[in-house]
């Protein structure tokens, strides 16, 4: 016989080992070691095994002893869900990762517009639904201890204090390893590893007992099966309704149980692990349930009548004197119970602290004056208190229920409670039309029916519900009987409760969803959830930091711009007395930041963003970042579009003006061609006429001949000059001219020009030269410049209409260079033709036809080549042209000042 003290010692050693393993895993994860083990699919699969609680370990045998194979439905449902991972779990895990979901309450509230009321309801339902389950675990540990106590001296054994001690140990473990860090999305490596170890222990224990029973007691497989057939449960006796309903119920609970959601979705590292678990976890379940029926049958055979079949796993080896095996079996059951309590408490405490405690705390803070303090500490404290609260509730339930009910019954009740989440959960991830009102109605109705038909009746007739209520219905309404709703009696109570609660839940959910209208956040979230497989890429890995200043900083940078945000944070950090670091997320700082952000994105959005980060609720920072990124991108994109359209407008304007210029040029070209043909034809006509006269008229006087020949000659000269000038102009215009740069004094150049222009026959012209400045030396194309001067002087000589024509040449210096004005004393050029005097072939009408009208055009071309220009000065008394030369052509000043009138 194993003494109770010995057992407690082994138990403590086992727990200490678990602590060590968990501690090692935390340390290894912190140092980045042991990654392959901590993140392996094996650990993931094993952590899923918290589905197998003490209910499985002890209760399944009792269940089988009472109802035959019905117990197996509890494992068939989860196996089907895992094998069908492609349909549901894949989507769930993807959503969990992309939305940074922290719990099932978080998922549901997040899907339905981040509704906190929905989160509170789901949390409360989960606590109510799971508390009996935790009590069940305590009860199983206490029961199993009592077996040893009964076998030993047992005098000192007190079930109540044992339950308290176990509960205290579990609470300590959960607080230690479950709330080390704030971020629930981060893996709880210590807890997960401990659970994996416990999973192995319970599997080994279960298999060991099974093998002992089949081969040690039963005498082999065939004999054991024969024994099974001969036993009280030797025939198939499961009602079809219960078979299907319990399979459905267990499948639903597998997805909806907060602890399963925690290990399956929240703690999931890689989607790949899910597919490996799709065959590995059914294998685990199969192995766990493989020996249940043999143990039950052999137990029924060997154990004295009246012994509790729930404890056959323990009492059978003990009665056969297999103390070591019994010890192992006890540890298996202990493992099942502890791992379930730890994870369930962890999941529930996250929900309670995130959705109930924190919102209340934050709302009380709003009213009070701004205080300093770290929100994280409050969250951790809230979580720890929630853990204690939940375990305390479990103990309380255990004390009240007195540990009388069969294990399996409590488990089924718990399953029925959490299964009520299923319609809202599945509807949320598959149906965009699901609304918050629908979810609230469905959950409310389903939960109410569950409480009325399953939870309250479980306390027994006359306990929670009076016998009258059972017989007559609530308030005497016969259609409200807890086990025969709507007058349909004769159903199995479990089937009755499951069918009514789930079907009415679904009906209400769908109907209200159809008639109600979701608000914008709901629609947005709905689209994100339902289309998660289409648009979510590989999930971004969650950084190890908490949603604190760093995340606020990143978000602020995305919204405000990096330098501004950094300056703002630096100023805030200095105000808090921190140098060279980020400021603490105090309420004051967050409020300031929110105001700052509100300037960029509007008050409502900023409030939502900041409160989501600081409030510790579900919406992940990554998502907010994505939103911020998207808006920044859109802003940039629209800026780019605007710029592009501006550029297009500019280009169009340029094209229009270019087109106008081209049209003008084409007109000019036409004009030029007709002009030039005209210019060429006039001399050609006279040359032809006079040469014909010379050829055909025989009796011409010598004087006539000479006259005609000289006319032909002068016309030819004119043609030649025309062609020369045309050539000159075209060379200049095409830019083919090469400037022959040289240096000369301006006065010398002027001398040459005046001399040349006044040479030959023609009207007399008096030329006065006024030089205000000392003579200058120019560095330019001397010949071309002289050509311009000649042209201007000879123009004055040709066209000045004064009685005594006189030309004044005035040289003046100014900032931009040199001005040389040619002003005559004539009547000037009419205002209406001033603008066209530089056009080709322009001639003052009625003047002697000596010029071809290209002189000024050529002058303008030359001057533009030389970097200067020639202008008409309209304000002078006579015709006045100004040749302006840039500063760059001036080489140096020379002496030789004064006036030098030349005649």
């Amino acid at each position, binding site marked *: 016989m194993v003494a109770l003290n010995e057992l407690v010692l082994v138990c403590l050693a086992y727990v200490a080992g678990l602590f060590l393993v968990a501690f090692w895993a935390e340390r290894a994860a912190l140092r980045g070691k042991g990654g392959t083990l901590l993140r392996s699919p094996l650990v993931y699969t094993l952590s899923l095994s918290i589905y197998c609680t003490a209910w499985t370990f002890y209760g399944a045998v009792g269940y089988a002893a009472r109802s035959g194979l019905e117990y197996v439905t509890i494992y068939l449902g989860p196996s089907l869900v895992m094998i*069908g991972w492609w349909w549901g779990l894949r989507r769930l895990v993807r959503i969990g990762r992309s939305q940074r979901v922290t719990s099932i309450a978080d998922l549901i509230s997040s899907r339905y517009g981040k509704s906190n009321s929905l989160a509170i309801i789901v949390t409360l339902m989960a606590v109510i639904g799971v508390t009996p389950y935790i009590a069940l675990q305590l009860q199983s540990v206490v029961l199993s201890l009592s077996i040893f106590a009964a076998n030993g001296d047992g005098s000192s054994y007190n079930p109540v204090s044992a339950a308290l001690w176990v509960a205290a140990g579990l609470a300590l473990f959960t607080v230690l390893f479950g709330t080390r860090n704030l971020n629930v999305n981060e893996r709880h490596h210590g807890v997960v590893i401990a659970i994996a170890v416990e999973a192995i222990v319970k599997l080994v224990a279960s298999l060991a007992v099974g093998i002992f029973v089949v081969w040690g007691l039963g005498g082999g497989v065939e004999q054991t099966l024969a024994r099974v057939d001969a036993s009280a449960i030797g025939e198939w006796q499961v009602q079809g309704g219960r078979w299907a309903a319990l399979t459905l119920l267990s499948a639903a609970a597998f997805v909806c149980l907060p602890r399963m959601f925690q290990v399956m979705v929240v703690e999931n590292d890689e*989607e790949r692990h899910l597919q490996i678990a799709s065959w590995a976890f059914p294998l685990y379940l*199969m192995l766990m349930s493989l020996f249940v029926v043999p143990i039950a049958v052999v137990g029924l055979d060997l154990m004295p009548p009246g012994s509790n079949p729930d404890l056959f796993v323990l009492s059978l080896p003990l009665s056969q004197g297999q103390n070591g095996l019994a010890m192992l079996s006890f540890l298996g059951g202990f493992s099942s119970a502890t791992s379930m309590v730890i994870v369930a408490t962890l999941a529930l405490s996250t929900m309670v602290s995130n959705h109930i405690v924190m919102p209340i705390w934050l709302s009380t803070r709003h009213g009070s004056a701004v205080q300093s303090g770290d929100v994280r500490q409050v969250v951790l404290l809230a979580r720890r208190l929630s853990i204690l609260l939940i375990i305390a509730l479990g103990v309380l339930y255990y004390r009240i229920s007195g540990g009388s009910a069969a294990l399996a019954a409590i488990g089924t009740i718990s399953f029925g409670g959490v299964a009520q989440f299923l319609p809202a959960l599945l509807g949320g991830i598959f149906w965009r039309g699901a609304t918050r009102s629908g979810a609230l109605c469905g959950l409310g109705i389903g939960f109410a029916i569950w409480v009325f038909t399953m939870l309250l009746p479980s306390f027994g007739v006359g306990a929670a519900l009076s016998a009258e209520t059972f017989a007559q219905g609530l308030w005497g309404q016969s259609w409200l009987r807890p086990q025969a709703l709507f007058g349909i009696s004769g159903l199995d109570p479990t089937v009755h409760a499951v069918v009514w609660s789930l079907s009415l839940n679904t009906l209400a959910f769908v109907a209200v969803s159809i008639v109600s209208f979701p608000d914008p956040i709901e629609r947005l979230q709905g689209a994100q959830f339902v289309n998660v497989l289409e648009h979510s890429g590989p999930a971004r890995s969650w950084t190890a930091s908490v949603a604190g200043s760093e995340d606020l900083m990143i978000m602020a940078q995305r919204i405000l711009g990096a330098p501004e945000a950094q300056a703002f944070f630096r100023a805030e950090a200095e105000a808090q007395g921190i140098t060279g670091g980020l400021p603490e997320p105090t309420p004051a700082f967050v409020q300031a930041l929110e105001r700052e952000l509100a300037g960029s994105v509007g008050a409502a959005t900023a409030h939502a963003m900041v409160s989501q980060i600081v409030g510790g609720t579900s919406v992940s920072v990554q998502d907010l970042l994505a939103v911020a990124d998207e808006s920044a991108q859109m802003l940039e994109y629209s800026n780019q579009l605007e710029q592009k359209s501006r550029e297009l407008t500019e280009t169009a304007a340029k094209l229009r003006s270019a087109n106008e210029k081209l049209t003008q040029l084409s007109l000019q070209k036409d004009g030029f061609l007709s002009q030039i043909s005209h210019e060429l034809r006039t001399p050609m006509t006279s040359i032809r006429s006079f040469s014909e006269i010379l050829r055909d008229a025989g009796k011409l006087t010598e004087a006539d001949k000479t006259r005609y020949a000289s006319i032909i000659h002068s016309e030819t000269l004119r043609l030649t000059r025309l062609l020369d000038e045309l050539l000159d102009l075209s060379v200049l215009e095409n830019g083919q001219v090469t400037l022959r740069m040289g240096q000369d004094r301006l006065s010398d150049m002027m001398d040459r020009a005046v001399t040349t222009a006044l040479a030959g026959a023609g009207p007399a012209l008096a030329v006065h030269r006024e030089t205000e400045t000392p003579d200058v030396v120019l560095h330019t194309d001397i010949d071309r410049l002289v050509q311009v001067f000649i042209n201007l002087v000879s123009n004055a000589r040709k066209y000045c209409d004064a009685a005594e024509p006189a030309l004044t040449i005035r040289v003046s210096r100014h900032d931009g260079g040199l001005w040389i004005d040619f002003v005559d004393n004539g009547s000037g050029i009419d205002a209406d033709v001033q603008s066209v005097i530089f056009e080709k072939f322009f001639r003052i009408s009625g003047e002697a036809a000596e010029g071809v009208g290209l002189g000024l055009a050529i002058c303008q071309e030359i001057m533009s080549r030389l970097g200067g220009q020639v202008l008409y000065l309209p304000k002078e008394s006579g015709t006045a042209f100004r040749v302006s030369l840039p500063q760059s052509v001036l080489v140096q000043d020379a002496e030789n000042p004064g006036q030098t009138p030349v005649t």
Partner: protein
Amino acid sequence: MPERRMFLERRSYRMRRAMDALRLWPLVGLALWMVPLLWAVPGEGPGEGTGAPMPMSSALRYIFGVWVLLILGALALWWRTGRGAAEDSAEGGADSPPRQG
């Protein structure tokens, strides 16, 4: 919109059929495990003396046989599709492995 090919390469074709099997496998399991609904239950259905009650050993063999079959099937499907899915996710398209072809 990339051009849709009428026929796939043999490898892609096999991959897609494997994914079809992956989707259908839980339905097969559900159907097989709901077969016990057809078994006779003592004390139910008066007058139905047709079927003798199913012995527990046969029931055990059937249920656990289906279980092993389902596990082996899921294992084989993981072997066939898991690697391709892993490669695809390494290429950045973890979403829908069989639709690559």
